[in-house]
Every structure is written in C-alpha cells, then in structure tokens.
C-alpha cells in the first residue's frame, strides 16, 4: 500500500524522535514561563519570580497569579485540546482539511452564544455581557455544542459511510451559521459587538472555577485520546481494513467523536471558536516527525499545540503595550505562513493519509 510505504520511507529514527520530544517539552516550558513574564504591564523579571514566593507587592502578585498564570494555563490546555481534536478528525475522515470544528461543534456553540447575546431584548442582552456573569455564555455554548455532538453521534451510529457523516456535519454547520447570521442581522450594534468579540476568542476571561472545569475536561479528553491511539492508526488504513482487523468501526468512531467534542466543545465554550490551531498543528507535527503513527502524533500534537498557543498568546498581548490583538487573528496570522511553508516544501502531503 502506498500509505504504508510512505510511513516506512520517511520515518525518523527512535533517538531523533526522542530528541524532538525533549525539545518540545523544553519549548513548552520556556514559552509558558515567558508568557508569565511578558504582558501589557511591565513587571521586572525578579518581581515575577518573587511573586510566586509571596515576596512581591500585592498588586504585582495579583497580576501574575490572577491574570497571567490562569491565562498561560488556559493557553496550554486550549492548544492541546484543539490540535488533538484536529488530529483525530483528520485521521477519522482521512482528510487533511478536517479540523476540530468539522462536525459543527463550534457552530453549535456559536448558536448557543448567539441566542444569549443576540436573541433577547436589549436590556437582558447587555446584562448578558455585563450582568449575570460569564457562566451564562459558557453554559449556552456548551449546550449548543453538546446538542450538535449528540446529533452527529446519533447519525454516526446509524450510517456506515464516513463521507456521508462529513457532508452532514458540514451541512449542519452551515445551517447553524445561517441561523446565527439571521440573528446578527436583526440585532443592534452593541449586541453585535458583544457577539463578534466572542467569536474573536479570548484566553484571559476564565474564573478560577471555570479554569478547573476546562482543565478537568481537557484532561479527560486527552486521556481518552491516548486510549484510542490504536484505533486512530487503524482508521488511517481505511474503515473496511480496520473492520477486517476485528475493530468495531462504528463504536470506535463514536468514542473518538465524543472525545473530540469534549475537547473542542469545552474550549469553544470557555474561549470562543479559536481557529486554525486545530488544522495546522497536526500537519506541523506530522512533518516534523515524518510519521503517521498516532503513538507519536498524539503526544506530539499535545505538546506542539501548547507551544503554538502560548506563543500566540504572548504575541496577542503585544508585550509592553496596553493594547491587545484578538487571539483568533494571531493564531491564523502566525500559523498560515508556517503551514504554507511546510506544505510547499514537502509535496507529497497525501502520503500521510
């Protein structure tokens, strides 16, 4: 088989793989720490360090412990979750354009949020932004994403053809977006602004309770992904082949869909639909390790996703300036050139699937 040959020909040696993993861990740690040191407010590195030991002034301590640390942790987990779910979707659909949102998870979440922000009358709406807190957006996004996820899993358990599911997922997403567009059309400027800002994504808005929920659900998703590594490899060989190897295709698919929905759904609920990472990072990792073995790609995507996201967060803060860039634009703008470069450098991208 062509794919099998591709794997064998390009594989890096075990030592090299281990070396790359060590480097990934180092980079993740480095950028995580850098994310704590750099921000809109200029804080001396010594003060950053001493704030962990309770020696810095209370204001600086608040900035580090309440603003930067939760944001850096969020970045790492968001990066992990999105790249992992992107990797899973690309494997299941055997399609390089698949990403975490291909099943309509983000469209479902967007609809949930749009109903809260755009759907009610003006007074309630601004309260949605300014009044009854940020849990309301999280819950509504989660409900929206969850409904879509259940629908897709229900369809997936009844249909055998994977391409039908892909098409249905895309149709569902487009349909939901159309509803959101209608709601946008009928909403006032302030509501529209609140909604558009949600779609731009944000990493620094999580309360400590929300961060706990995000960390727990992403960890659960990561654990489940590690358990399904073998199934992902089997999917790469084609569903018929996987079935003939004795794997229950439909149930495996449902487990992986559930896993992706937990990962992408919780990220979207807390941080908005953050784009690009989920599609780009798996390609990056495949090209760096030159393999399609998910035993390497899964941990690789977890680490690389965390790295790319923390770097994006640092850039979005425009260190030293009080202003901000929306995180969604940063992930796209720094990621697109990287992916284009990789794809042009290496012509046989299809060999990976």
């Amino acid at each position, binding site marked *: 088989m062509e794919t099998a040959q591709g794997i064998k020909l390009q594989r890096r040696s075990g030592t090299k793989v281990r070396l790359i993993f060590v480097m990934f861990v180092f980079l993740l740690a480095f950028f995580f720490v850098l994310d704590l040191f750099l921000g*809109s407010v200029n804080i001396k590195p010594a003060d950053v360090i001493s704030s962990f030991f309770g020696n810095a002034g209370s204001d600086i301590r608040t900035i580090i412990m309440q603003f930067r640390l939760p944001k850096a942790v969020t970045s790492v987990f968001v990066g992990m979750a999105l790249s992992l779910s992107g990797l899973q979707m690309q494997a299941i659909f055997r399609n390089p354009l698949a990403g975490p949102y291909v099943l309509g998870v983000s469209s479902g979440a967007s609809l949930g949020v749009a109903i809260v922000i755009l759907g009610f009358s003006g007074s309630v709406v601004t309260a949605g*932004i*300014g*009044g009854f807190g940020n849990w309301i957006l999280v819950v509504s996004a989660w409900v929206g994403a969850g409904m879509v996820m259940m629908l897709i899993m229900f369809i997936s358990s009844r249909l055998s053809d994977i391409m039908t599911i892909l098409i249905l997922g895309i149709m569902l997403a487009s349909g939901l977006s159309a509803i959101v567009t209608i709601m946008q059309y009928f909403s006032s400027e302030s509501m529209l602004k609140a909604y558009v800002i949600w779609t731009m994504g*944000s990493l620094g808005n999580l309360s400590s309770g929300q961060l706990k929920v995000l960390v727990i659900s992403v960890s659960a998703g990561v654990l489940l992904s590690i358990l399904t590594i073998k199934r992902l490899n089997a999917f790469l060989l084609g569903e018929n082949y996987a079935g003939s190897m004795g794997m229950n295709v439909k149930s495996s698919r449902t487990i992986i869909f559930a896993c992706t929905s937990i990962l992408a759904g919780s990220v979207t609920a807390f941080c908005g639909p953050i784009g690009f990472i989920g599609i780009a990072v798996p390609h990056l990792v495949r090209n760096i390790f030159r393999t399609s073995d998910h035993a390497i790609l899964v941990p690789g995507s977890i680490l690389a996703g965390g790295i790319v996201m923390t770097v994006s967060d640092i850039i979005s*803060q425009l260190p030293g300036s*009080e202003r901000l860039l929306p995180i969604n634009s940063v992930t796209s703008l720094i990621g697109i050139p990287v992916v284009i470069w990789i794809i042009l450098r290496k012509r046989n991208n299809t060999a990976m699937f």
Partner: protein
Amino acid sequence: MCSKTAIPLFIVLSAFFISCINNKGVRLDELTVPAKNSFAHAERFTVHKKDSCTIVTIIDPWQGAEKVRQVYYLVERGKNAPQNAEASQIIYVPVRKIICMSSTHLAMVSALGEHRAISGISGTNYIFDDVLRSRADSGQIVEVGYDSEINDEVILKTDPDLIMMYGIGLESAGYVGKISELGVKIMFNADYLETDPLGKAEWIKVFGALFCKENLADSIFQAEVISYNSIKSSIEEGKFSRPSVLLGLPFRDTWFVSPGNSYISTIISDAGGKYLWGEYESSTSMPFSLEAVYMNSLNADYWLNAGNATSLADIAALEPRLTRLPCYTSGRIYNNTKRTSPGGGNDYWESGSLNPHIILKDIASILHPGLFREHELYYYKKLN
C-alpha cells in the same frame, strides 16, 4: 540694476496675487462654514441666516468623516428656495412631522414644545419620556426600525417632513438611500460626536431652526450654558484634590477604554475629577488588555458608568478579579442608570444630552461629597 529691482518686485507682486486668490478661497469657505460666534460650543454644525432662508451646515456628520459638509436650506413655507439649492437640501419650515432616529433628539424636540411633531422613532421600546411613550403606545408615534432594518414603507406612509438621522459611519447613508431617493428629506445629526458637553446641548439650535423657534432654542441653550458654567466655576473655586475616575466595563478580557477627549471625560474634568486615561486622544475607544486596565485602575478613587451593571454583584459575576479594585471594595461605584424605563430606556441618553449641567452636578457631588450637599443625584445612583 533694473533687473535686480525687478526680481524682488516680481516676487512681491506674485505674493500679492497669490494672497488675493487665497483670500478669495477663504471667503468662499466662509460662506458655507461661517466663523464660529463667540459663544458657540458645537463643532459639528453651523447655523446662519442668508436672505430669506436659514442655512444649516453639518460638519463631518459621522465617525471618521473628513471634510464632509452637508448643507441644508431651511425655507419658510410658501417662500422661494434659493436657485443653487438641490431639492434634497431644501427643508420647508416649520417642520410639522419629524422622525427621530436617536433618543437624544427626543428631549430637544420636546423641550421646544414640539413633541406632537414626532411621528416616528427608532426604538420606541427604549423611550424614557412618559408623554412620548404613551404616544408610542397609542400609535401616534410609529416604530421605524434602525440601520439596515429601517422600515421604508412605514416611513413613506408616515410621510415626514424630515428624518433626523443618526449614523455611526458612512454606511448609515446607504440605509436611507432609498427613502432619500423617493424625496424624503434626511438630516444627519452628529451630536454624539461633540466632545464639549455644551456643544452637544447646542444642537437644540438646529431643532430651533427647523421648528422656527430660534429664540426659544437660544434661550434654553443660554440658560444651560449659565448653569453649567456656574457649577463648573464653583468647583474651580474650591481647592480640592482631583479624585481619579475609571469608566466602563470589559468585554471578556478586553477593555474598550474611552479616550480622554470624549464627552464624558470633559465632564469629569469639569467636575473636578481626573480621568485615568485623560491623556489618551482617539476618536474611538481603545482596546486595552484587562491586565493593563486593572493595573491602572488600582489608582481609581471612583468608578463611573459601569456599563449596564445595576449592582456590585453584577460586576462580581462578570469579572471576579475586578472585585479586588480599591474602588470596588470601598463601594465607590456609581452608574448612570437611576432613571430607566421598564423597557430599558435610559434618561441619561435622552434628556441628559440637553442637561449636561445636571450630569456635571451629579458627578461633582459624587467626586466631592461635601460640595453640593443639597443636591440629590438625578441620573446617577450608587451601586450596592
């Protein structure tokens, strides 16, 4: 010798001619944009009489507009319009039916005693004024929609003499393009762009010209100027420290900070306060990171205009970290939501534009508790 004197002479002569041409150019400009009279505060319009008509010029009527001039010729009914005026520029006065697209227009029309002329409003649910609201309930004032949803058919059926338009940007002109084509007169109102509080109130003069009640409009405005300035000077006389002020609420982790050259920051400064971002000049609000705003706000003595928050709990639910701010813990947060209607209309945005002296007095008595002891807060309330 001769040539040596000729050259300077030539230069002097050419300079003279060039200056003549320039002078002429300036004079032409002055025709459309007359020099501001000494008491004028508004920067976005001018009104002046020429022959039998009143010429109203709206200057840069939307955010980001540069060198845009909209000239209107207000002609008394039955009289002849000037030859050079286009049909869309001619408004026959007094206006008998007007559609108001912004709540700030309502208070000004009502102040002139012309509330019966209001035949349509954008956002009837958000009216605060009791009289206007009951007129809307009984159908005497119709809802005309807003932005891309402006209901052309309702407007044509109402057959207004004028639509007082409010637009954030150039695209607003497109929303009314169709009705304008059908002969409905549209005037852009740029009062929301005035940075001087009295300049915003001065827009009543435009309404005065439209309803042929110039004298009434002038006297209302003059009274406003006197009360505003007397409050302002009584604050200046007192020797106070200037408490610093934080404004607004964040959207998720972004805080759109109002610039220092805004309407509200002028009032804060006049009220003897110091706006924390007073030195930042911008025509739009600036997206700052929550971290940076938090750090600066640690110095805030007072927190005003906190979005739609009606209680301290609202703010705590929105962003728990803000509860660490000293102005939060000391409970010095005030919002302009005291006078709101059940439908969500806020009088601060309605009559407030015409009464900046009340806003000034409210803020001054918040920032300097000993100053106006007898004054009860009108638009503002303390959040609990």
